[in-house]
Structures are given as structure tokens and as C-alpha cells.
């Protein structure tokens, strides 16, 4: 896992160097954040292929627009704004196409494409394993039913651990609006998972 900048001044120096055309500095910036970016895209889109595309597009946009970054916000906020906007576009397109590529329907039942990547370990108890699998499947299903905005706020808060204040900055809204969005998301999840917890 790449280390995040230890202090903002180091990061600012890297950004300025990258703005001057220093490719090494840009690579260092990418390495500092790209695992988090990929994790965010994977969890939001639940598709390794789409996460890969978002990663590429996000960092290319950062590169092309680096000279527009004026230190009005943190680089992290700026980068995450680009990534979440790309993910939101992708999620909205899926809604329009009414497709959710995470869970595929197969003759053998639902198959999650993300099962190729890490899954939860359970102990040897088959009943518990089955129950845990049901919970996971249900959580994924409900995540797919959230609006793109609810899903983004939920992802950023629950899985990325960002504060609502920062999430508001990333999504271009207020902390209060992000809070209401998170509230709606957890309310839907609670209602849908009531039998499992």
C-alpha cells in the first residue's frame, strides 16, 4: 500500500514539481493515492473492469488539468472529486441502462463478479457459511438499489472512512446534505437487512 504524503508541504512541493512537468513527481503523487482510488472505484462500481477504466481516466484527467489545480482545496479532495464524478457517471449510465454488472443471473443462480476478488472468510460451520453468504448477497443487492449519490456517500463514509465534511467538499455539497444522504442510505440498508441482523 503506497504511503500517503506525510505532511501537506511535501505534497505541495510534489504538485508544484509535477505542474512544472516533472514526471517522477507526478508518479509519486499517483502512487500515494492510487490504491485508495482503485479501492473506491472497485467498491462503488463492483466491477474490476470499470474500476480499471475509472482509474485510467481519473489520473489522465488529473495529469491534463494539473495546471488548473490552484490549492483551493486539498489534492486528495480534488482527486476524489474527479474519481467520484466518474463513478457517479458510470452508475447513472447503468441506471439508465437498468443494468447492474455486479450480480449476474446464471442458470445456477446469482453470480457475483466480485467473487473473483477477496471474500469474507468464515469458519468451518456450513450453516454459518451459508448465512454469511446470504448476508453478503443481500448487502450487495441493496447497495445496487441505492441512488448513485447515496451509494457514493455511503461508500466514502463507511468504506473510505472520510468525514461527512470532506465528503460534502468532494461531492460539491454541504456536510448537512451529505449527512442526509448517508442517513437515507443506512435507512434503506437497515430496512432491507432487518431479517439478517
Amino acid at each position, binding site marked *: *500500500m503506497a*504511503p*500517503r*504524503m*506525510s*505532511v*501537506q*508541504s511535501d505534497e*505541495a512541493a510534489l504538485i508544484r514539481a509535477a*505542474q512544472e*512537468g516533472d*514526471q517522477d513527481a*507526478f508518479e509519486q503523487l*499517483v502512487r500515494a493515492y*492510487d*490504491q485508495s482510488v*482503485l*479501492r473506491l472505484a*472497485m*467498491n462503488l462500481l*463492483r466491477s*474490476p473492469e470499470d*474500476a480499471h477504466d475509472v*482509474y*485510467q481516466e481519473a*489520473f*489522465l484527467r488529473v*495529469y*491534463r488539468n*494539473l*495546471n488548473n*489545480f*490552484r*490549492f483551493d482545496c486539498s489534492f486528495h479532495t480534488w482527486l476524489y472529486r474527479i474519481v467520484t464524478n466518474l463513478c457517479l457517471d458510470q452508475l447513472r449510465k447503468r441506471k439508465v441502462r437498468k443494468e447492474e454488472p455486479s450480480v449476474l443471473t446464471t442458470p445456477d443462480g446469482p453470480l457475483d463478479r466480485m467473487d473473483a*476478488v*477477496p*471474500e*469474507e*472468510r468464515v469458519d468451518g460451520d456450513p450453516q454459518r457459511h451459508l448465512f454469511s453468504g446470504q448476508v453478503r448477497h443481500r*448487502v450487495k443487492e441493496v*447497495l445496487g438499489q441505492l441512488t448513485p449519490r447515496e451509494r457514493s456517500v455511503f461508500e466514502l*463514509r*463507511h*468504506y473510505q*472512512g472520510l*468525514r*461527512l465534511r470532506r465528503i460534502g467538499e468532494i461531492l460539491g455539497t454541504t*456536510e*448537512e446534505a451529505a*449527512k*442526509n444522504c*448517508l*442517513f437515507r442510505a443506512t*435507512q*434503506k*440498508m*437497515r*430496512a432491507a437487512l*432487518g431479517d439478517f*441482523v
Partner: protein
Amino acid sequence: MNGNESGKVSGHAPANAEGAASSDGACDWARAQLSLLLYGELSFDEEEKLESHLEACAGCRQALDRETRLHAAFDQVAVEPPASLLNQCRQELWDKLKDLPPPERVSPAPAPPAQRTMWWGHELWDRFVDALTLHAEPGSAGKWMRPVGALALVAIGFLGARMAPGLVPMNPAIGEMSLTEPGSAHVRYVEPGSGGQVQIVVDETRQRIVSGRLDDSKIRSLLLAAATDPSDPGLRTETLTILNGAILKSLAQADHVPAADVRDTLVFALRHDQNAGVRLKAMEGLKPLARDPEVRAALASALLNDENPGVRTQAIDALTAGPGLSVDRDIVGTLQELMLHENNAYVRDRGRLVLESLKASPETY
């Protein structure tokens, strides 16, 4: 965030059955806040009010247990991108960047707004400062402006301190505050600042901001306390990010060994934190210390016992792929033990590849 800002959320009714059954407005309010409590997003006053209610209401305590289980269920679907995907993404990006022209050179970005930018604008302030300091011509009004200005400054300082006590820089006073005593203070938010400084928002009876360097013992105590704050995984993650930065910095100084208390805090988080994201963050900080026997033991324990496959995967990397690491018999044994009971195909695969690269059998006999 303050208590008044949450009015909209507070107005919602909870969706679970317990909430629907409750006719008590206090219970409805409390249950609507439980998720925000677990996320550490309530203000100090809201949290106090909720905790007082929870102490007196068994039904809401049960609802909190349910909410905690719900959050644990969310954790089950978190995914960690495989290292192979990350490497592929990086390689493709480097290839694409080669074909792109460098970003256009720009004039240096403007410095962050200076503190003296106030609502009345620069000009008046500049004239005021000029009058007080250097630019008063002999015989001009500046001569008498100086004592008047000095009096004005004292008055502004006095009024400012009375009207906005929370905005006063706290560093000199840290030693006098019992910030680290349990129960007297709660760290709400931490943020890395410039020049090695960190900013910490502390809840006491009101929030206030203290700032200082990590080598300040009070700042350090606050951060170490925040790293184990049970109510707020976001706060713990951000705190560990700062501590990880401190470790990297001390390692960059040749004769400097990372402080044991920081290392111990990260080890504790890796072993005991309930939140997988926090454990991953602790692992990130411990990776450069993987030669330390205590760190090694914690990493091995995470590899064999952590419930999150992302953490287990990272533990393999930390134990085997760090700079200057030599893989000894113990690590091989740990990996072989992992192969005995690992259910996750991806983690098994990673373990098998490492063992093969060491020319060790994936099985024990």
C-alpha cells in the same frame, strides 16, 4: 457540525421495527441517530444526549446492538483491489503518459490566503499597520496614530478573546489543559498541517482547536488516544495516517528509530481494531517496520486470524515483500499454516505463489 445543523436528519423516523413500535419521541430521535453515532458524526452535545438516553433505555440499547451488527454486515462486502490489478493499472497509465505532452508550465500557484485577509479588505488594514509601524512620516498623523493604534489592538484582542475563545491558538496553553485525561476531552477530528504540524479538534464542553508538532508530548498523547477512540473509525483512520507519516519521516532520518509508542499503537490497532479499514491503515504504517520482531508477530497473527481477506493479503506482502526483508523459516511455516485453512481463493493463490518463489512446499507434512 453543531446540534442545530442536524435538524433535518433528526426529523426522520427510524425504519426498523423497534422504531416503528416506539411511540416515544425521545426513542425515535435516539434511533435515528444510532448510525451517525457509530460513524462518529454527532456533535458533542448530540452524543451526550444520546448516551444519556441509551443509559436509561434498554430498547434503544438493543437497537444500537442491531445497528452495530448492521455495520459489521456492511464490512463483509468490502473489497480490496488485488495487487495485480493495481500493477496493471499503473503500467498502463505510465505507458499512456509517455505519449502525452507534459502539462503546460504554469506560473506558481498563489499562496494560500493570508490570515490578514479580513472582511474590511487589505487596504484599510495595511494603512492601519503602516501607521503603527514603519511608514509614518515625521510630523504626519502617524505619530499620534501609534498610541491610538496600540490601544485599538489591545481592545480588539480583549474583545476577540471574550467573543471567540475557541479561536484562540491553543499551543502555549496545552500544558495547562487536561486534554488527555479520560472523560475530560474527546478528539473529534485530526488533520495533517503544513511543516510537520497537526491540527486536532478537541471536544470538551465546547470544541476547540489545538495544534503542534508530533514531538510535543501533549499532542502525541491526544493522537495516541484518538487512535483507539472506539466511537469513530474515521477518526482512527485519519490519526493512523498521521502516525504512519511520522514513521516514514523517522525512518528517512538515518539514525532515528520510530518511537515505540507509535509502533505499539499501530500494532494494537492491527490486532484489535474492529474496523478492517483501520487495520489496513495500521498495516500500511507497520510495513516498513516488518523486521521488528513484535511487528512481525502482529503481521503473522493478522495473516492467520484476521477475518478480512484484504488484511490477510496485505499481511503476506508485509511479511515477504518489504525492503530488506529476509523470509525465514518462521514465515514459511506461517504461510504453510495459512494454506491449511485459508478459504479465500485469492489469498490462497498469493500464499502459494510466495511459497513457490521460496521453493517451499505449499503443504506441511
